[in-house]
């Protein structure tokens, strides 16, 4: 699909430039998403306490993967909320590009600052 200008997605879907309306998920879907978010939040806390509570059971190998695990779980929650609750998955791709660009800059700044202050070099 050719998308040469903002709103092209909405126009293609609705046949009019005046509508960036979109088919939102149903309330039942929203509730299922909330349950998934709850499960992930519980998983984050459980993962945190696994190494300290299970040292005697040989699970201390889990410690080094804790930080990546937290980042991945947070990223999943982030994408779900932005995609479904903020409707970015269903809206015109222009909004995704605006948000994605800002997010990319923010992540770049964070990465650079961490590298600079914690002595990580390429």
């Amino acid at each position, binding site marked *: 699909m050719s998308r040469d200008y903002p*709103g092209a997605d909405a126009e293609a879907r609705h046949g009019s430039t005046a509508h960036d309306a979109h088919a939102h998920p149903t309330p039942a879907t*929203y509730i299922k998403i909330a349950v998934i978010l709850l499960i992930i939040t519980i998983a984050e806390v459980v993962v945190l306490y696994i190494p300290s509570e299970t040292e005697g059971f040989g699970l201390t190998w889990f*410690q080094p993967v804790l930080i990546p695990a937290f980042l991945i779980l947070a990223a999943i929650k982030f994408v779900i909320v932005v995609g479904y609750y*903020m409707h970015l998955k269903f809206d015109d791709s222009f*909004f995704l590009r605006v948000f994605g660009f800002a997010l990319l800059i923010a992540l770049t700044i*964070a990465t650079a*600052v*961490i590298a600079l202050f914690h002595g990580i070099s390429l």
Partner: protein
Amino acid sequence: MARAIAHDEQGRLLPQAGHGDSDIHDHGHDDHGGEHPTSTGLNNVKVLMWTFIASECLLFGSLISTYLAVEGRTIPNTPGPELFDIPYTSVSAFVLLFSSLSMVLALAGLQAGDQRQLRIWLFVTAALGLVFLGGQYYEFSTFYFEEFWLDKNFLGSSFFLLTGFHGAHVTVGVIWLLALWLYSLRYGIAPEKSLLVEISGLYWHFVDVVWIVIFAVVYLIPYSRIEGGGH
């Protein structure tokens, strides 16, 4: 002033507000949330909101970066992440996540023409926001009495700046939601004005996703280092 014509998602004409429905207030002007032809083909208010959210990404990105820069480099023997009560903060995190659910249910209720659902879920969302703020007040008070505060070390400064800014955003969101709720009680909000609720929802969900990041990066990761015996 010419009235905008309301359409549903498939572009069909919708009944106009204020005709035979006393529950919905008709202001007699363009109450379609500004949905008239624009140069981009997108609603200008929505474009503005997403641009604002993008700028907020940079603000919180900078604040989180500042916290990460000083984390682990604080003055020895001063309070820090060991004071975090993770189960308590997890409940706060879920309160905010659940408020996002109630927010989308409010919007879905409005789009279905159900004013009662709109009012209930708007109120629930604002109430959950207040619960979160109450929890944050309790947490800040606890930290203060444990000598972890803005002026104790760099970590305290960056922590309270970041979480305080987030709390300020939640406060603005709660005021916004309560204003919408009162407006819906007094006048009702017509389905074709759902953009009013959608825009406030975008702001509220953004505040929620910021907390998702803060919860992982500011609370869980530093605490896991302490639990795991340092770096």
